[in-house]
């Protein structure tokens, strides 16, 4: 019996109708596209990405830039798949994953990504508070609960579309990293070659190099980004006419974000590596912008870091609650108020409270950032494999199922991430990154 066959006396009616469009005019569509691209920038760059990119450049010069190519392709491919699954099925990742694989198997990605989500919220709170702490010299430990309160109020009260785009728009100030890269890098050919053929001369110690590669991949493809993108497609009521929008947002937006990340790594490679200056504290991260562009560079970097951390904090918080609500089949999303959907908002609160509690144990924020990005990379196969299975199931996707070329690329990325999952803990121990 085909999955789509109905049983009952009422006419067939699916929960959503992918063929219905929002009926927008041309200008509104262009606007949505533009904002979607900008949101892609904010989604690709967060505090974890900022720190791991700067650390990579400072420690290994250009030897880890190749991870950007893998990260961009991986993010673009799986974001496109997540968006297409949401549009074609009218349902989100965790909803269809549980439907396709069953409650017991689907519990594995849920637990893995929930841990990643909570830690990512903590990382983004750290990003916000370290910026304020740098300016005011107030301990970031005192600021963490305040930052969480700010996120809570914002996610409670602000409309989804505004929330999705404000952080990304302000986060464009992170383009200062591209400016400092242009101002400080001189060996462009070496850097360009390293994208595809890294020089291993600076890739030591090897265990730390490989573990750093894992953290970078996790920073480029943090699990919350895919959950948020999938749920966001339904929050914004994307229909069948948004398949093209989905493809453009997931590729072009990613490209802009990758440019900023390249700027961060290149800047650190040019200005920190020659002095053997590691990025072990937030003040170290500010150094290259002060050296290159003075107070203006520092201001842009601080504003940009706060903005992308804030935006990513909102997204990670929502993604955590999305995943749990979708797994259990409860109402989720910003369309309802807290009094209409208390379970969803309780989930948001739970994410923030857990993150604050962990943060207040005085864990080193930059070390936590690196480890969290690595944990994110380890959690990815548990999401990507079920997503790939659903995206290839004609009963769910109809004609929108994965093309063979997409499957080849997706499987290569997945294979690499499985190696990451297997190697992460041994490399963590060997590199002493704990």
């Amino acid at each position, binding site marked *: 019996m085909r999955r789509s066959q109905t*049983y009952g006396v*009422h006419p*067939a009616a699916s929960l959503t109708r992918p063929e219905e469009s929002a009926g927008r005019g041309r200008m509104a569509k262009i606007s949505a596209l533009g904002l979607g691209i900008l949101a892609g920038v904010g989604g690709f760059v967060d505090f974890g990405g900022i720190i791991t990119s700067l650390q990579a450049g400072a420690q290994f010069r250009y030897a880890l830039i190749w991870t950007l190519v893998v990260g961009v392709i991986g993010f673009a491919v799986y974001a496109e798949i997540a968006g297409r699954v949401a549009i074609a099925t009218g349902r989100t990742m965790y909803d269809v994953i549980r439907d396709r694989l069953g*409650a017991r198997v689907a519990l594995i990605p849920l637990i893995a990504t929930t841990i990643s989500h909570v830690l990512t919220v903590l990382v983004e709170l750290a990003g916000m508070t370290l910026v304020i702490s740098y300016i005011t010299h107030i301990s970031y430990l005192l600021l963490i609960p305040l930052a969480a309160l700010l996120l809570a109020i914002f996610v*409670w009260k602000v409309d989804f579309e505004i929330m999705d785009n404000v952080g990304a728009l302000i986060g464009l100030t992170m383009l200062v990293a591209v400016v400092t890269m242009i101002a400080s890098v001189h060996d462009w050919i070496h850097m360009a070659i390293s994208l595809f053929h890294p020089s291993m001369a600076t890739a030591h110690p090897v265990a730390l190099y490989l573990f750093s590669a894992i953290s970078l991949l996790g920073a480029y493809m943090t699990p919350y980004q895919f959950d948020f993108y999938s749920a966001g497609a339904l929050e914004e009521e994307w229909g069948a006419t948004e398949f093209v929008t989905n493809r453009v947002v997931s590729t072009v937006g990613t490209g802009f974000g990758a440019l900023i990340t390249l700027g961060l790594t290149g800047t650190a490679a040019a200005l920190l590596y020659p002095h053997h200056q590691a990025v072990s504290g937030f003040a170290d991260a500010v150094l290259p912008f002060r050296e290159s562009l003075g107070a203006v560079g520092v201001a842009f970097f601080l504003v940009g870091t706060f903005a992308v951390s804030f935006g990513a904090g909102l997204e990670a918080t929502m993604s955590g609650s999305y995943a749990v609500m979708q797994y*259990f089949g409860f109402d989720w999303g910003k369309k309802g108020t807290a009094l209409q959907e208390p379970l969803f908002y*309780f989930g948001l609160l739970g994410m923030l409270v857990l993150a604050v509690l962990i943060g207040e144990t005085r864990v080193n924020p930059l070390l936590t950032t690196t480890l969290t990005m690595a944990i994110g990379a380890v959690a990815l196969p548990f999401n990507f494999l079920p997503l790939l299975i659903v995206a290839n199931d004609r009963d769910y996707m109809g004609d929108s199922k994965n093309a063979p070329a997409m499957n080849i690329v997706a499987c290569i990325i997945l294979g690499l991430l499985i190696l990451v999952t297997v190697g992460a803990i041994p490399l963590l121990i060997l590199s002493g990154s704990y």
Partner: protein
Amino acid sequence: MATPRLLLGEQVLDKGLISKDGRRVGKVDDLLLEINEEDPESLPEVLGILTGPLTLAEEWQGWLRWLMYRLYRFLGIANPKPIFIPWDAVVLIQAVVRLDLTRRQVGLTKLIEAVDRRFVRWLPWT
């Protein structure tokens, strides 16, 4: 005309539940079947749907089950139980299972009201 057959595992289990008032009220976490002991060869009869986190918790490892029951107690729900939906409340099965019951009639509001009462409504920005 042949009687339509329903593959419960494929077409019903883990599907989303939608109430009469259009709300998501959980998933088909389990099914309650009755076997006719006088005619063991006959197909079991579906009595209804079991739903709610506690339904799943019964299948989980001990510590996860304990955590779920503790969470319900924390929310102020005494004697938490899985939610049972009689099979005759099911009106349509497709990508989701539609019910002829409101969210309140399903029984999900106990959990929702507990969360609202204990946490959400007391927040100053709600």
